[in-house]
């Protein structure tokens, strides 16, 4: 009897230990990236490639609010052993938090990660954690604008393959312009903004005219306008030698003053970007103008609805050209299928695919070959009143003369700046001076 009790106890102890082991293995079993093999259907081993993208990348099958060229399916058809799973985050910031965690812990990263230009300083500083994609790109005959290639390259190692660029025009509501007594034809609107000599002064002058005539807001968000301005400064927040110059840079202060002055004069709708209210503003009459990098057309279309009539685009931009955003694809070294992933990344950023993405969605190619594609140049967009978007964005891309330097701290400083502008413009909780001072403190905390 005694022994049977002991056996039972022994069993219980074993069970206890087993449960610990189980729990531990359960912990360790997460995040495995199984390249499930065994199927003899395709040539070569079955691989699953997990891709993380954000906003409206235009790669996958089109959905109700996101256009797409359905390229994954095309690739899977040509490569029956490859299965592609794309996870689309709603914004680059949301995708970034997960990506940072994966890179810092060394596990759980997607096989292909779409990376915004603002992430690149961090990524290039950790170049050894990412696959050199140059040989794959060469094989896929990829080509990029020189500055785009430079942004994704460290010491001759090309770790980021460019997807799109964000040359900016100005999107406007022709119906609201008409009601305000302003021109509606896109060539005349471009002239009204100042044509080839458009400056931010002439932009805000037209805004003042609109606001005086209608009593309504002209543009969507101060932070969005500032984003357009800061992308025209070669060294804005961080100098090329790595020192932080944001708070002493006269151009940054001048831009800040100009945009907050206009906002307080009623030109801003006071909406924070990427909020529900901001999205809804594209189909109500909350504002008449939005700076328009090529990829944002996807969002305007998604927010307003495909059938919405009124949005148009003018081939003009204040202060010369401007580029806002545009992304890269990177393949982390920790990926278990990095070779297959690299091939796919090279394929989908090749000129032919970039052209298809622009035709289906509105992400303007970063490849000169794709830009020269006759179909790309001839594209018109029925949503934007049949505007020749292929021609307009090509012009806007040519107008970009400044490639802003974005040093390591740029992203944090710019995020703090958006907060500062939102305090004045959206919350109305601080005066421009108070908010500037708080921003100066925020920047100081970065050292």
């Amino acid at each position, binding site marked *: 009897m005694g022994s049977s009790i002991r056996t039972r106890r022994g069993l219980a102890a074993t069970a206890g230990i087993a449960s610990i082991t189980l729990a531990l293995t359960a912990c360790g079993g997460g995040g495995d990236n199984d390249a499930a093999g065994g199927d003899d259907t395709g040539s070569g081993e079955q691989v699953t490639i997990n891709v993380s993208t954000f906003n409206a990348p235009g790669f996958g099958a089109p959905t109700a609010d996101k256009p797409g060229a359905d390229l994954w399916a095309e690739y899977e058809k040509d490569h029956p052993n490859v299965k592609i799973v794309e996870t689309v985050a709603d914004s680059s910031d949301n995708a970034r938090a997960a990506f940072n965690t994966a890179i*810092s812990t060394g596990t759980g990263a997607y096989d292909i990660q779409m990376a915004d230009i603002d992430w690149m300083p961090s990524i290039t500083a950790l170049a050894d954690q990412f696959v050199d994609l140059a040989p794959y790109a060469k094989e896929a005959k990829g080509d990029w604008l020189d500055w785009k290639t430079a942004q994704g390259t460290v010491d001759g190692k090309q770790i980021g393959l460019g997807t799109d660029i964000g040359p900016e025009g100005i999107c406007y509501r022709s119906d609201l312009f008409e009601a305000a007594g302003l021109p509606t034809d896109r060539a005349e609107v471009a002239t009204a903004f100042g044509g080839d000599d458009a400056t931010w002064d002439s932009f805000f002058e037209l805004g003042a005219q609109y606001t005086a005539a209608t009593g309504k807001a002209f543009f969507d968000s101060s932070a969005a306008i500032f984003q357009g301005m800061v992308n025209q400064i070669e060294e804005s927040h961080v100098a090329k030698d790595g020192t932080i110059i944001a708070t002493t840079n006269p151009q940054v202060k001048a831009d800040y003053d100009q945009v907050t002055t206009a906002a307080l004069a009623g030109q801003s709708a006071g909406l924070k970007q*990427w909020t529900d209210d901001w999205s809804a503003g594209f189909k109500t009459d909350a504002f008449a103008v939005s700076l328009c990098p090529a990829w944002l057309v996807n969002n305007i279309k998604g927010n307003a609805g495909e059938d919405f009539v009124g949005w148009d685009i003018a081939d003009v931009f204040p202060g010369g050209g401007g580029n806002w955003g545009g992304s890269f694809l990177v393949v982390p070294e920790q990926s278990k299928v990095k070779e297959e992933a690299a091939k796919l990344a090279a394929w989908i950023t090749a000129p032919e695919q970039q052209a298809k993405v622009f035709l289906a969605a509105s992400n303007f190619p970063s490849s000169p070959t794709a830009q020269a594609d006759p179909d790309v140049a001839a594209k018109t967009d029925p949503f934007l009143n049949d505007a020749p978007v292929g021609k307009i964005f090509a012009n806007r891309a040519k107008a970009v003369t400044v490639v802003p330097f974005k040093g390591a*701290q740029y992203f944090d400083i710019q995020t703090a700046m958006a907060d500062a502008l939102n305090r004045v413009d959206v919350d109305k*909780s601080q005066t421009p001076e108070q908010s500037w001072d708080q921003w100066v403190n925020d920047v100081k905390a970065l050292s």
Partner: protein
Amino acid sequence: MAATSAHPSTTATPPPARDDAYERKLRARGRRGRLDVKLSPYLYISPFFVLFLITGLFPLGFTAWIATRNWNTLTGDGGVAVCGAVCDSTDPSIFANFQWVFQQSAFWDALRNSFSIFLISTIPQLIVALVLAVILDANLKAKTFWRMGVLLPYVVAPSAAAIIFSQIFSDRMGLVNTALNWIGIGAIPWHASTFWSHIAIATIVNFRWTGYNTLIFLAAMQAIPRDVFEAAVVDGAGRFRQFFSVTIPMLRPTLIFVILTSTIGGLQIFDEPRMFTEGTSGYGGSNNQFLTVSLYLWDLGFNKTTIGQPNMGRSAAVAWLLFLIVVVFAIVNYLLTQRIASSGGKPRTKKKSAKKVSA
């Protein structure tokens, strides 16, 4: 076992040698038996403690280590922490990250918000839960239906609830503001105002947790023996008197549990303010209107990961400060609760007698 050892002489082998060996064997078995009795219980509860060691104690210690270091999320350890420009110091010190945190107005804002949201959510929540539990404890028709109904919001995932409420509290298109505009009161700045943002977030918290606490209270109330109430009724106690003099004192252990867990949960609140943030940056509001300590440490640790910044070290320092605050506050609450609940009589003896009666 005892029976065989009592008659060692009945076996055939010579007594001294065999006795010796047998004694030793017996003693060994006795030792093993004692060891078994002494050790086994600890072995049985060891899974919890081993797991706690791995998932609780080790991270706690490791976080303390990170908090003293110049640690970046992406690049890892970079030596002893340095405070930098905010305290005009480039000297390495293990307290540098804490000094940096104390210099940040965002941290103090976050602390204020955590306490404020905790208070305006927990206090009304527990009161309402108690009242609901009393009502559910009464003889209602379709009891299970009502009880299930109370728990339903708890089934909704916190982030789902937060998303739904974020839309309800949206500044321009939100349900509440649309209704207020329609009545003619005018819209409330749910995100821009510190006070109103706290009210909104407390509402989301209460929506989810009131039912949960109600059920815990209800379960405890049902365990109170009915004869105690009967005795109170015989003594002429009305409904209110019964509630304050019988129910509340008898609920003391449950009250302590619920208040402690609410304190810990309330001070660590994260999901709701995270989801309440509109847009994709500026978590907790552009002026830190509803930035909580947990949200602050997450933002610092996982979003502000710029290389060269000791962001993880600073985030770990915030985490440790939060831990200390929660511990202190939990102790204070525990002492307070004990005092409040025991002032109504002598719950200890009552409870004992009650147990005897029910047994």
